């Protein structure tokens, strides 16, 4: 489906002085952007730089406050996603706009404006997905699909409209390196057909690899327009962050102590039809060590965290060992009392109650393990003075920027709240810390602060287990790396011995786990 040719210096899409205000806050402030036919154009920026707001305006989801959008030289008002699609703009969202309870074909049908019979849509989707190397079963339920497969639905859905411009929002954040390579092949194919791609990312390496031009955003403003291949990662990062990002000094501790956290042939059945069962997971974390568990989302990370933390105790007590004691049947408070700390994945609603102040969130997590400090008398009344002092101590220690003395957790930015909930555990000096996706959706400054804190904790003689999807993060903090895939955990390898390629293969489950072999 080639697109009709346009003259060389023409632009498919131009944006002039585009601004979006939320109240008095300018999410996008006077943005200029030009996208030419047949180019892969990168939109670079930190979390919160305004990338998502910008593309939502381009796709008609948000209405701009001021500024103009030109499509093939004509001023247009994009009132709705349907209008955007009609112009020839396709969009692949970062948080997929998919319906889990519906089939692939039904999901695609919903985004098409012409009302074709479902069978015909299924046939066309299947044909198109194979042509672009993105195989899909149109009759599968979305809930049963992996994240990579879900992304394919979004891409095929966009391609079915025969778009001139395709916008991809952080497409590789959920993919294995191999899956990402396949995606790039597809993008090159689209470029060869004369289509344009707006590629949103904060990953410099892949932007340099695949993009022809780049526009960099910071705090809602354009801070640079360049050819990424002429730049260095450091110069791009400077444009993105505005300052040098502190480097995490890696763990690399040589003194390994005793095993503090261990899983022995840990298995757990899936609790819901769409959850992943843990299958014979073996791992050991020693004092002074950071074990990182890599893996693509939805491969049992959440279930592993639940089993290790005691959020859902497992059947057999001896399959989880904390400082040499069998704790598989114990709840989270008992495990905390034994010196363990846990930081779950979602900040809002899981790790913290958004509507409550920081001090209350502190009590909720530690009311049992720190009951002597935080509660008084037989009724267990909260000593608010002690709690507030502790909350303040954590904020100072982790450099949590907040408005007011004790604000609601929900009023903090993602990075600051994440620093608080990690700091809440570090404050206790836990001998074992289990943390799931410690820096997901957090800006680079906060992320490096959190990672450094994790490394420092290990250096001081604690055992740290980090579950993460971010390979950069894993290589920064880990002394040992294991990979989880479909509820199975690979052997652990010293971080220095692993390459990204090998981790990618492990993520795909290609390396067989040797039966009975333990993490060391």
């Amino acid at each position, binding site marked *: 489906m080639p697109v009709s040719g346009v003259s060389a210096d023409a632009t498919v899409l131009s944006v002039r002085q585009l601004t979006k205000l939320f109240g008095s806050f300018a999410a996008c402030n006077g943005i200029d952007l030009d996208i030419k036919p047949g180019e892969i154009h990168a939109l670079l920026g930190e979390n919160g730089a305004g990338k998502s707001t910008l593309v939502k305006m381009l796709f008609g989801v*948000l209405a701009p406050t001021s500024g103009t959008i030109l499509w093939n030289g004509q001023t247009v008002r994009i009132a709705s996603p349907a209008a955007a699609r009609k112009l020839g703009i396709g969009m692949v969202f970062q948080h*997929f*706009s998919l319906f889990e*309870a*519906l089939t692939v074909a039904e*999901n695609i049908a*919903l985004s098409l404006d012409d009302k074709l019979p479902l069978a015909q849509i299924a046939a066309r989707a299947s044909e198109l997905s194979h042509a672009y190397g993105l195989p899909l079963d149109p009759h599968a339920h979305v809930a049963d699909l992996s994240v990579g497969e879900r992304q394919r639905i979004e891409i095929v859905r966009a391609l079915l409209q025969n778009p001139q411009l395709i916008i991809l929002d952080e497409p590789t954040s959920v993919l294995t390196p191999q899956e990402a390579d396949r995606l790039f092949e597809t993008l090159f194919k689209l470029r060869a057909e004369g289509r344009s791609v707006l590629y949103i990312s904060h990953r410099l390496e892949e932007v340099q690899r695949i993009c022809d031009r780049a526009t960099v955003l910071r705090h809602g403003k354009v801070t640079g327009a360049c050819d990424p291949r002429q730049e260095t990662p450091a110069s791009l990062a400077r444009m993105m962050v505005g300052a040098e990002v502190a480097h995490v000094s890696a763990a690399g501790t040589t003194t390994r102590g005793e095993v503090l956290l261990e899983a022995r042939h840990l298995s757990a059945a899936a609790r819901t*039809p769409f959850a992943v069962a843990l299958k014979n997971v073996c791992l050991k974390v020693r004092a002074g060590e950071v074990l990182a568990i890599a893996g693509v989302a939805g491969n049992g990370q959440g279930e592993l965290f639940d089993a290790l933390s005691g959020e859902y105790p497992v059947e057999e007590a001896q399959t989880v060992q904390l400082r040499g004691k069998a704790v598989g049947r114990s709840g989270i408070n008992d495990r905390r009392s034994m010196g363990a700390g846990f930081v779950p994945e979602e900040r809002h609603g899981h790790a913290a109650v958004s509507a409550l102040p920081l001090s209350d969130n502190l009590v909720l997590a530690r009311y049992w393990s720190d009951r002597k400090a935080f509660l008084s008398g037989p009724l267990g009344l909260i000593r608010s003075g002690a709690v507030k002092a502790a909350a303040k101590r954590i904020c100072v220690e982790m450099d949590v920027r907040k408005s007011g003395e004790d604000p609601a957790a929900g009023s903090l930015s993602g990075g600051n709240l994440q620093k608080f909930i990690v700091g809440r555990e570090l404050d206790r000096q836990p001998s074992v810390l289990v943390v799931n996706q410690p820096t997901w959706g957090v800006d680079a400054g906060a992320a490096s602060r959190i990672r450094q804190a994790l490394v420092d904790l290990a250096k001081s003689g604690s055992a740290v287990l980090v579950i993460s999807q971010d390979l950069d993060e894993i290589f920064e903090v880990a002394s040992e790396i294991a990979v989880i895939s479909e509820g199975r955990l690979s052997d652990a390898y010293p971080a220095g011995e692993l390459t990204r390629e090998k981790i990618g293969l492990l993520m795909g489950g290609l390396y067989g786990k040797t039966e009975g072999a333990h993490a060391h």
Partner: protein
Amino acid sequence: MGIFESILLTIATAATPLLIAAIGELVVERSGVLNLGVEGMMVMGAVCGFAGASLSGSPWIGLVAGVAAGAVFSQLFAVLTLSIATNQVATGLSLTLLGLGLSGMIGEPFVGEAGSKLPNLFIPGLSELPLVGRLIFGQDPIFYLSVILTVGTAWFLFRTRTGLTLRSIGDNPASAHTLGIPVIRYRYLAVLFGGACAGLAGAHLSLVYTPQWVENMTAGRGWIALALVVFASWRPARVAAGAYLFGGVTIGQIHAQALGFGIPSQFLSALPYLATVVVLVMMSRNKRLMMVNTPASLGRPFVPDR
């Protein structure tokens, strides 16, 4: 007409209001809205249906008045929960309380008045068939409507693009919004349909089931309809099965009470509720099926950001 045939006839009459109210609520919940005001809308339908028939002299006008009352009443809920995004549970409960009170006030002059009953429709030829003839082709008009509504809703939800869109909104309104689907408008229409159905079910009570007005005459049927929808895992055919099971046991236990088996009558009266819940719980044990059919956004307000 034999005794057996007349029992079956009354079963259909007992099941019809439940079925209609539940089908209406099913559509509402499939759009992600939980309207706990079914009982209130139903009782408004019952009183307005009766009043309309009494004042105009025509049960047909009563029927229209009942449907309209349910529909109008539901829009109160729609404005509050959809436009102002109030809590759906609290608003629905208030709607029920308001409906029960308001209907008592409207119905005051009609208490004790003899009502007029909607005539049964006999389909020529077919109603003369042996056994099933009278049963299927000689019923009250609302019975036929309930059949059409059930089949029509199933077809609409699972065979049409608009039905697919409605289900997608119930699954994930934020995604639907980003695809450019007018979420709030769909939800308004779904609530309107649910209200009209509840009104129709109420009108059935006061124009067919027991053609008179008694305060609080819905007697919890709205709640049963709500439970039916959940236990039937939001599928129209299962809702129908549940409604007829409830109707069957209701009529059965009345006859059992008359025959006097020596079982406490309170237990027998509770039996329809118990039987329906047990059977539907068994039916909804398939977790996967529940997962795929449960509207994931049920009860959560949605405010489009624009």
